[in-house]
């Protein structure tokens, strides 16, 4: 078996690939680098596959915590791993939008699943999952409720601040002046989408566009992004585990 582990800033994901290059199991734990998350998700994925650590022929680590994680044979960036993982699961994908807990990436992919170009957000929470966490807190809802809320929006509201901290103040003042939380939720999604559109333009995006990462679970954002890009955006299968699956595929190639 071949193990891929994606250690992010706020979650850890693991995936197993067998000798026939088939996906056997995936797991996710909402604890990222510097926590017990990586070890726990590995234990979980091994339990799911009913195997032990000794059955792992090769392990590749990816994600923010890949360099400090000592349990891998090799480490590869999440950019290469997302490209690999998504291209394995979906045919014809040319652009991948990956929005994680603390960063956002747009990756241009070739026919062979190899990275052709990429851009990352700067060291700033705007346009990332952290931005949504802050918005959910201000709106008094859970992060997974944002999508349903935004779906009920009837009026366009623009959150003009590009900085998460200033956007928080802006949202508070919008709510204070009577704006509906549904409209503000959609405004927050639009704010992320506009940043991502800018990144897509920089990298030179082309369809098919797939989205990965935790934020891809928010169907309203996927919809808003599709509108802004004027091109359909598809949520990748195993969206949060796509990087780990890519890492497991690299492990398969290196270990076999």
């Amino acid at each position: 078996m071949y193990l891929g582990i994606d250690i992010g800033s706020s979650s850890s994901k693991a995936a197993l690939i067998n000798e026939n290059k088939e996906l056997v199991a995936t797991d996710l734990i909402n604890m990222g680098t510097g926590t017990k998350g990586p070890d726990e998700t590995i234990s979980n994925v091994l339990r799911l596959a009913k195997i032990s650590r000794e059955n792992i022929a090769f392990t590749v680590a990816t994600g923010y915590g890949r360099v400090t994680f000592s349990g891998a044979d090799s480490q590869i960036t999440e950019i290469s791993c997302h490209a690999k993982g998504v291209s394995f699961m979906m045919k014809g994908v040319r652009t991948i939008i990956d929005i994680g807990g603390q960063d956002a990436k747009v990756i241009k992919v070739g026919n062979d699943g190899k990275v052709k170009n990429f851009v990352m957000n700067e060291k700033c929470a705007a346009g990332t999952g952290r931005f949504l966490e802050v918005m959910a807190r201000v709106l008094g809802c859970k992060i997974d409720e944002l999508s349903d809320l935004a779906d009920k929006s009837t009026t366009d509201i623009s959150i003009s601040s590009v900085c998460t901290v200033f956007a928080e103040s802006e949202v508070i003042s919008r709510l204070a002046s009577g704006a509906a939380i549904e409209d503000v939720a959609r405004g927050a999604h639009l704010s992320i989408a506009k940043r991502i559109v800018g990144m897509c333009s920089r990298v030179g995006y082309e369809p098919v566009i797939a989205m990965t990462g935790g934020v891809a679970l928010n169907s309203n954002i996927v919809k808003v992004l599709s509108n802004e890009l004027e091109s359909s955006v598809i949520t990748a299968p195993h969206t949060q585990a796509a990087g780990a699956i890519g890492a497991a595929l690299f492990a398969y190639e290196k270990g076999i």
Partner: protein
Amino acid sequence: MSELKTLISQLENIALNPGKSVAKSVKDTGKEPIGCFPIYTPEEIVYAAGYLPVGMWGGKTEIKQADKYLQSFCCSIMRSNIEYGMKGTYDGLKAVIIPTFCDTLKCVCENWKTAVPQVPVITVVYPQNRLLDAGYQYLVTEFNRIKDEIEKLKGEKISSKNMEKSFSIYENYREAMRSFVKVVKDYPITINTRTRHLIIKAAYFMDKKDYTDIIIQIVNELKNSSAENFNGIRVVATGLIGEPVELLNIFVENNIAVVADDFAQESRQFRVQARNKGTAIEKMAYRIVDQKGCTFLYEEVKTKGQMLIDMVKESKAQAVVVVMMKFCDPEEFDYPIIKEEIEKADIPMLYIETDMQMDSYEQIRTRVQSFAEMLG
């Protein structure tokens, strides 16, 4: 080879310890130091007067006092320089020379007078239209004014003979550096990206003549050995400055070698060969007139993009790396133009933003490693 290692290590240590290195150079030469701000200053005049020109390209320091003059969205090199100045690090300087190549530098010229009153400032204004004869004539006049200022500081005239001698020492330095960057691209293992930068940077803290002697020795030593078989990625780098050094360590970790550069702190200082005719000051002015592809010198039609493309071909590089100093307006204004040209030439390009006060490199590590994986 051990002699080569000693020379390399000597220059690396000098670049990594500017304070100690300048103190040693002052002691060894008996010359008083004059600080020279980026991008270009007429160092030959400083040298001809018997002073030691010292480069002032910032450094990593906690910004506490500089905020009074330069906000957090200003160039971090200038913020570092003001901070060092205010906390007395530069008190040993006889004066500083500050050119006005960008909006921040223009402000710094005035800020310095009140922020660091103990170190006199000499400002130098380069012509906007240097390609016109009037621009050239103006620059000659401006350099002569700087000469007058330095003579006043010294209390004695700079002879024509000393001016010519100084210019010749600088021309020898520049010739040696052109030879150095040409030769080291065949030795990217011994002279890796970090070492290459540190060797070039050491020039800012030494007497140019002593430095040139060491560079010539390094080049000769390298030429005695065969070219290295490097299986990594060869790149051309551009930007204001290839720092912090931690960034270069990431390049080395990922087997990426800078085989040619367009850094303002590095090759732009020495890539132009002077004309033969005229006085030293006239030749100095022509060197600025003849400089091409520099963000800080106006060009009606930007030549930088094509220049980088040519550099990639000549040095057999695979890609261009743009090291963007945050809030460096001139370099940022040029970026979209060069990006379009380089992309059109189908040359992969990596864009990295840096500043002098960086202490977290994880995101940059991901970018650089991904780029290496993409090209590998």
